[in-house]
């Protein structure tokens, strides 16, 4: 006869306010198998843990049920407690009487009844629990960082500094990301390139960092500590070892009319190109889609002029397969398309996004840093900013979230304009100015108080092209008047969204994404840099809109998590895996067909059935590959497959216990 201990947590008043703990204790004392029951204000606290530990030892309990908060919260805590008291940690079950009971139901009587039922179900389950023992898996001491922007660069540097090998994978020909495109950064107005380039160089020169630009993740398999990634190194058509980065090729390339992605399409580049002057590695790539040699077979001018002979048109995509212990996702963001916002007239060259404005003010940008109208090259006399274009928009046109960085970069843009050209009239239509952050609000106030930028609480209904200027029809909500403004340029604070490709990447990682396609964190507050998939960490705007300081901070945090993981030599696997009863298995292959991890194989196995010994085709589960989803268990018609920790008997016992109230029907 098993001896089960039940521990009811009050969680201060979180549970006790609605659930009558005394009544629960009284009810469950009568349940078969319950040998001990106690309550305490905070079971997770030191004293509560000691109480459990002592009870296990004193009563030689075989299993315990803790009726407290969600198992997602403290299951691990109580398992440790059990372990320290000499009980197998898998002999612990949690009855979730906080999130699923006391916080949901206002009525104390109802909540108490439900708490009893949930606890009874947990008791029914724990009675059927069996001790489980995790397997040990070694940890590959190498990290994969996906995305070569500031988030990926910082994470790679931090991990490498701790002495672990890092592969930094970037799809474009150079690392640097969005930060490389920016002119100045808020709130200090230091130049973006000046602070980013040294980090890029550090990255490139670090002996532990292997940069793979112009590369893509093709496939990721495995599990925490033992991922295997296949990386496609796109054919650059330029030999990395031979190229000196002299620039002869891109200066001579006859194809010069390709929209330059780095300059947001505002200027043109050649077919063989580097994205920007400080590109790292400083090795060009040939854009095969536009290159004449690849389209017609003629030309080859770059090859002729290349003195080191680095150009090789025959290069093919290469595939590298490498093992990693941990993965950091730092794929960043992009701005949304504005096709659905006809009222702002984005097709007019003088109506631009903030990212395009960054390039226009940038010294190395399409206008050489001159602030001019793209339509006629004239210096604008008046500039109007419109905030929240596509952000905080729950219709199908936009994104429901706040893009977070726009208020601050618009304040930055307005200061930059006013600082250089005090005579330009700057108006900003805003809904709310959101400037929390160190020295952020002061920065925004300076733009209004010191630089005379006019902030208008209101929105713009329409931007119209009047030939030599733009007419804006907006509203000032504080004055409750309509404003008809003449302006020369309109800058739209366009919403940002996760970079394309995040969806397939997330499914390769079997990590989840939210409704807006941002990577989901394991816990919104307590595990913000971890994905729910063990061994996958998040950095930067892939997880949600973020500015540079936050991105760098998160990248460092993700790196710390990676270092903590890679510092371990072995990881204990989840012992809740599928297991086969060889005496019932038919070898019918139904389980193998549904396994997402290829963890099931079949082979002749010795079976002894009531003395009748044979070799049978029996399925076999690879414990290291099995993640314990249970698909095979349900597929198995004979009930030979079972999932440890969630066995058929256990789940049925839970069903039975919960249905007890209707058993008299």
């Amino acid at each position, binding site marked *: 006869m098993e001896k089960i201990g039940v521990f009811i947590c009050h969680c201060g008043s979180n549970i006790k306010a609605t659930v009558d703990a005394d009544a629960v204790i009284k009810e469950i004392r009568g349940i078969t198998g319950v040998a001990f029951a106690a309550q305490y204000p905070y079971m997770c606290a030191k004293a509560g843990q000691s109480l459990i530990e002592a009870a296990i030892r004193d009563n030689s309990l075989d299993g315990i049920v803790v009726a407290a908060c969600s198992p997602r919260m403290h299951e691990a805590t109580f398992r440790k407690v059990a372990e320290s008291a000499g009980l197998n940690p898998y002999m612990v079950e949690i009855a979730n009487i906080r999130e699923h009971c006391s916080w949901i139901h206002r009525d104390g009587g109802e909540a108490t009844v439900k708490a009893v039922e949930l606890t009874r179900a947990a008791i029914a389950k724990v009675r059927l629990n069996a001790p489980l023992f995790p397997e040990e898996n070694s940890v590959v001491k190498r990290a994969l960082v996906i995305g070569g922007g500031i988030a990926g660069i910082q994470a790679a540097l931090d991990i490498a500094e701790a002495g672990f090998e890092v592969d930094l994978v970037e799809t474009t020909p150079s690392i640097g990301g969005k930060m490389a495109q920016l002119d100045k950064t808020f709130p200090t107005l230091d130049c973006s390139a000046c602070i980013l380039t040294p980090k890029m160089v550090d990255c490139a020169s670090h002996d532990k960092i292997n940069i793979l630009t112009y590369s893509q993740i093709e496939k990721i398999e495995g599990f925490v500590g033992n991922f295997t990634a296949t990386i496609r190194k796109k054919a650059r058509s330029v030999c990395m070892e031979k190229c000196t980065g002299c620039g002869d090729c891109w200066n001579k390339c006859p194809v010069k009319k390709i929209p330059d992605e780095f300059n947001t399409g505002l200027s043109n580049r050649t077919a063989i190109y580097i994205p920007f002057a400080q590109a790292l590695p400083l090795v060009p790539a040939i854009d095969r889609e536009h290159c004449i040699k690849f389209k017609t077979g003629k030309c080859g001018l770059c090859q002729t002029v290349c003195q080191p002979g680095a150009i090789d048109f025959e290069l093919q995509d290469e595939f590298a397969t490498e093992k990693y212990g941990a993965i950091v996702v730092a794929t960043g963001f992009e701005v949304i398309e504005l096709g659905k916002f006809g009222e702002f007239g984005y097709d007019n060259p003088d109506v631009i996004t903030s990212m395009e404005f960054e390039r226009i003010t940038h010294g190395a940008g399409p206008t050489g840093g001159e602030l001019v109208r793209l339509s006629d090259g004239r210096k604008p006399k008046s500039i109007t900013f419109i905030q929240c274009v596509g952000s905080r928009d729950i*219709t199908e046109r936009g994104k429901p979230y706040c893009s977070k960085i726009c208020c601050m970069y618009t304040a930055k843009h307005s200061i930059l304009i006013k600082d250089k050209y005090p005579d330009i009239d700057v108006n900003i239509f805003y*809904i*709310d100015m959101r400037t929390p952050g160190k020295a952020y609000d002061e920065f925004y106030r300076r733009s209004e108080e010191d630089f005379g930028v006019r902030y208008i609480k209101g929105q713009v209904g329409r931007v119209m092209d009047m030939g030599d200027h733009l007419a804006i029809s907006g509203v000032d909500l504080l004055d409750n008047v*309509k404003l008809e403004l003449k302006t020369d340029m309109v800058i739209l604070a366009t919403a940002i969204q996760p970079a394309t490709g995040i969806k397939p990447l997330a499914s390769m990682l079997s990590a989840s994404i939210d409704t807006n396609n941002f990577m989901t964190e394991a816990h919104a507050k307590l595990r913000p840099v971890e994905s729910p998939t063990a061994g996958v960490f998040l950095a930067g705007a892939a997880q949600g809109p973020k500015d540079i300081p936050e991105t760098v901070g998160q990248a460092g945090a993700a790196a710390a998590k990676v270092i903590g993981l890679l510092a371990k030599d072995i990881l204990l696997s989840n012992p809740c895996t599928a297991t086969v009863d060889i005496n019932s298995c038919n070898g019918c292959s139904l389980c193998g067909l549904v396994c997402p991890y290829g963890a099931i194989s079949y082979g002749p196995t010795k079976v002894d059935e009531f003395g009748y010994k044979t070799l049978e085709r029996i399925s076999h589960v690879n414990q290291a590959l099995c993640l314990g989803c249970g698909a095979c268990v349900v597929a198995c018609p004979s009930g030979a497959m079972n999932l440890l920790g969630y066995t058929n008997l256990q789940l049925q016992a839970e069903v039975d216990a919960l249905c007890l109230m209707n058993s008299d029907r």
Partner: protein
Amino acid sequence: MLNYEYQLEEILDISGVDIGRCMKCGRCSASCPSYDEMEHRPHQFITYLARGDVAALLESDALWQCLACFSCVQRCPRDVKPANLIEAVRLAAIRPKGAEFLTVEEVEAKFAPDMPQQLLVAAFRKYMR
């Protein structure tokens, strides 16, 4: 004294609008071609209703200045549909009258001569039995 609480409920019910969603950005008013004619602006219809001041809206001529062009509905980032709300307030105003709201005699006084013909036709179709 009319029970405006009932009318408020009816207005919200007819329009199917959740005024709680409004984040007071003003894009409705900024898009409104009748803005200058309206005593209470489109965005104010929402704030008035939010504080339950149906009377002010019912008494105001602003109610009848809306051209139902639906620019505000199209551009509202929060899917609040101000034009639907205004239409619902109109219904709340005419329903108690029971019979014809607009008579031919009233037209001259109510409508400015430069108003579009279309509007008059629409108004007759809507408010006459």
